[in-house]
């Protein structure tokens, strides 16, 4: 196997699972998450000579997010015309109590709010990087995260309703 391929294999081993988990947090569907991660890896491999030395993981994430966005558009069209019904295998997290409430609330967030929250709090990415990945200004990321957390607070009830928001508006790196 050539050097390029070996290097990609290492990258694949390091990043595929992380991409798949990111895909699941965006879609609630492990099968779709796997496809997203596969697609992201395929596109990254196709561009390997260009991205191998610079932010390749970020490139793969960006591809996954773009692909997810296009799947969302397609899903909207499919729902509108009720043409396609895809069987799904459900592997739900085993949550109960407030965690289940929060998980369900997260699922109900608009896609961009949810993506921003996942990137910000699951991957712990700085707001500037989230902005780059989502293709929006940093201010929009702040807004998406702020509004998303506000909705989650609403769902969780009084215990979080009065909590401040300072921690998600930190200075840019």
């Amino acid at each position: 196997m050539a050097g390029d391929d070996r290097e990609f294999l290492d990258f694949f081993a390091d990043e595929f699972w992380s991409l798949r988990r990111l895909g699941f947090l965006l879609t609630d569907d492990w099968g779709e998450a796997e496809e997203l991660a596969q697609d992201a890896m395929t596109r990254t491999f196709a561009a390997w000579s260009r991205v191998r030395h610079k932010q390749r993981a970020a490139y793969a994430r960006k591809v996954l997010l773009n692909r997810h966005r296009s799947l969302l558009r397609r899903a909207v069209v499919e729902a509108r015309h009720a043409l396609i019904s895809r069987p799904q295998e459900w592997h739900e997290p085993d949550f109960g109590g407030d965690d289940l409430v929060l998980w369900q609330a997260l699922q109900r967030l608009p896609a961009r709010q949810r993506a921003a929250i996942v990137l910000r709090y699951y991957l712990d990415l700085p707001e500037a990087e989230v902005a780059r990945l989502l293709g929006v200004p940093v201010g929009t990321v702040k807004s998406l995260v702020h509004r998303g957390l506000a909705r989650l607070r609403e769902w969780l009830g009084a215990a979080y309703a009065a909590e401040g928001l300072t921690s998600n508006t930190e200075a840019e790196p």
Partner: protein
Amino acid sequence: MSIEDRVRQLLTDAVANEPPLRGAPLDYALRRRRRRPLVAGAVALTLVLAAVVALAAVQPRQRPLPSTVSTNGWKTLTDATGHLRFRYPPDWALQRLPKEDDAVVLVPPEDADRPIDQARFRVTILLGETFWIGEMWSGTTTKGRMPNGQAYLLDVQGPTATQGNQASGYGTYSIDWGRYCTSHGRRYCGPHSVLISFGGSSSSTWDRYRSVADTIARTATPLRPTDPSVGDRSRPTCRPDQWRLVWPEEHAMGNQGQRFVLQGGVQYRQGPPCHLRLPLRLAVQDKAGRPLPVAGNPATTTVEGDLPEDGMQRRYGSWVIDGAFMWRFAWEEWCKQGLPRATLQVTAAGGATLTVPEPRLPGTRGNPLPAGLTCQDRGQPSTVAGWPP
């Protein structure tokens, strides 16, 4: 616990118990990539040899030109999928690559019982899905025509020896297979190419089989006559507002890092179907626009094809680098000391212009050279030319 910490914990817990994979994602990624035009031409098994050569301390040796090999008694393989027929020696073993249906491998009799990846010499034929000529730029490139008239480029590197290792070499024919519509899988109408790579893990196998590999390549023919890959010249000429130049920020290196390749394309914008024959010029200049003392500067090349069919495509946020309108320039000995920082300006007939930043010197941020390769000032002239040569 703050809402942020709560969300962090929840997201981590949500993916803590992952179900097993449904498929084989690595196979999927590699297979898909090999079918894409961006694939460096490369059939992985042959690239093993390329990697060895690329990282070697080079000790080039003169090799005799390939001699003629009689094809009497050779077998014939006809592949309708690849729109290809070729002949090979009757005692050579033919295999399809595992999990690949668009490549076949030939190995000599003494390697017939070995796994493919342990063969000491092999010829790999990658059946053309799209058009991809001249992507192999690692070694010495020559061009010519096959006995049946198809134009080809041949890139050969080696055999080279490293200390403690045997010499190895490889080569690739990229052959213009003409314009036709595929009849399998994704329907694609346009120009196609066929890649035939060969490699030997030692000087002895190289010397013994190189001419056989050349002869196999020269027996390859399309199953039916194809239209010229340059497209339909009877169409109206494209207007300047129907296309634009694009540069996908793609740099490539060859010849141990001494060759910098700049490549871009032509994107369709609007208007009725048309034909475009587009001369292009690359000027290597300083920031004030003065030409740098590089032999061949400015360089020229020409691309030709039909719009909208052959226009460069953008998928999932990145350009698909292939097709009739891929233009390329090669700058040899590009890191020569004493040259001021350069700007690369590509100009098309009609005035369209692209300005591309200079390639980065080794050791500087953004330098595109892979690890193990360094561009060095070898005291040789710096030259620029359209690619393929």
